[in-house]
């Protein structure tokens, strides 16, 4: 288990997340991609904390902050989906074509 290996795994998670966030049409699936990106960030944070930053508690805290971001965005995302679903009866990005230009 090396730092390089950990960072490559983190990058892979982030990359898959990017793919998911950009390729999916369902909001919830897009959110999954976003969560995966943050998952990669958490892994990278802890890896750097353990292997590069000498175990300073700020590294752990950074991971906690990342989880906060994840939780907050999930909550707001779900709320927005509920809102959109209610007015639109739709949950596909393709149907969001009203605003453009």
């Amino acid at each position, binding site marked *: 288990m090396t730092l390089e290996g950990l960072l490559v795994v983190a990058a892979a998670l982030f990359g898959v*997340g990017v793919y998911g966030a950009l390729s999916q049409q369902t909001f919830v699936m897009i959110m999954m991609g*976003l969560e995966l990106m943050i998952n990669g960030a958490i892994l990278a944070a802890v890896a750097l904390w353990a292997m590069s930053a000498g175990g300073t508690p700020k590294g752990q805290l950074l991971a906690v902050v990342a989880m906060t971001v994840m939780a907050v965005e999930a909550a707001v995302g779900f709320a927005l989906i509920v*809102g959109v679903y*209610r007015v639109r009866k739709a949950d596909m990005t393709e149907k*969001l074509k*009203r*605003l453009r*230009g």
Partner: protein
Amino acid sequence: MTGTPGEVMHAAVASAGMDMPVGDVTPELVLVIGAVIVLVFALAAPRRRQPWAAALALAVLAATAVATLPMLDGGQHLTFFDTYAADDVAVWAKLVIVAATALTVALSVEWFRTDARHGEYYALLLLSALGAVVLAGAADLMEVVLGVLLSSATGYVLAAYHRSSARSAEAGIKYYLLGALTNAGLLYGVVLLFGLAGTTTLVGLGDELVGADSTALVAGVGLVVVGLAFKVGAVPAHAWVPDVADGGPAPVAAFLTVVPKVGGLVALARLVVVLPEAGVGWRPLVALLAAATMTLGNLAALWQDDVRRLLGWSAVSQSGYGLMALVALGRSELAVASLLFFLLAYALANLAAFGVLVELRGRADLDAYAGLARSRPLLATALGLAFASFVGIPPLAGFAAKLLLFGAVLDAGYAWLAALAVVNTVVSLAYYLRVVAPTWFQPAVEPLPVLGRWAAMAAVASAAAVVVVGIAAQVFLGSFEAARLLPR
């Protein structure tokens, strides 16, 4: 011991062993507590009393301003173990945010009158303003992330606040998707910087990043800059601005194009100055973003027939001008002053422009503005003043801002950026006049229906402030000149 009274006091407090300098975050505390009070009021008050929450919110903002003002001579220092800056830049940013939020509240009263959730809206508005305030003071990357998060999470909701409107919901979702994407990148960038420096405080970054690996540094800085560009509404994360301006509630659009920008630009400024220029060419990077932002915003605005989208794109291009100040940081004495003055001038002008839009009940149809100068001369004048300030016509506030910005980038050796800004300014005149000209030169028609007194007063007051601030620039510049941008 010598020093200003504020410094002495702070030193005394520090030596007294107080590790929780609560006094340094009084405005923030006032905002939090105020938001909760507004929320509780909203939950308890009967429906017809809901608009009173606006008055309550204004009181909270006034209290925040009162709490902020004494900090102007409070000795500029870092606080909370170097995670937060209590410097004049932060104080002024707070004042601008508070003023902009207060004007937004005034714009919102009549707009949301029929909404059953009238009260919670103001609580969210205060919390969103708090997010920008946190950004403006953040001296720690984690604080930056949380500031972005607080400001965004509330922003998404505000943009989608018309819960029965598909357009509003769509604006919120689009804002959210772009925000979540860039936030994830921001996080990863912060992680990389943390890995290099072993800390997240800006002080620590400034010390540790010298000689750090430049690959990781560039990647980290790039991701963080993109993350903050989202808040600022700058390329490459600008796409939400016209959507929110168009689909979101108009007062919210005014708010979201101003307040997060104030926080985001200050946060970005704070970050870039501690970066080692040898390791990462942040200056050309920011210059490039500024150039792309102002140009793209202008070109897109040029083709708009929809006033709301036009205002949105104009807000994008204005972000480009704001970024110019960052390019000059550390190279020109004018940089910090120009940033602050730009923020002030932009906030007022943008609120005036959106204020007129709100007062006209969010009317986006350009043709409907014909003859406005005769049917509603005050509104037409306010709109004209706001746009003239955007262009930088003297002696309005926008002119002094542009003068300072141009001076700063020239001073920093970025003459090409100044020249490009000039070209863009000329281009922008074309689309601003597309709106203003019909209001003056076409015959009057039936007066457009308006919203109400509060919105009209807010719009006119902002426009008047654009004039006053421009002429009385010294009042502000005298203080801006002495403002420090900690930790450098």
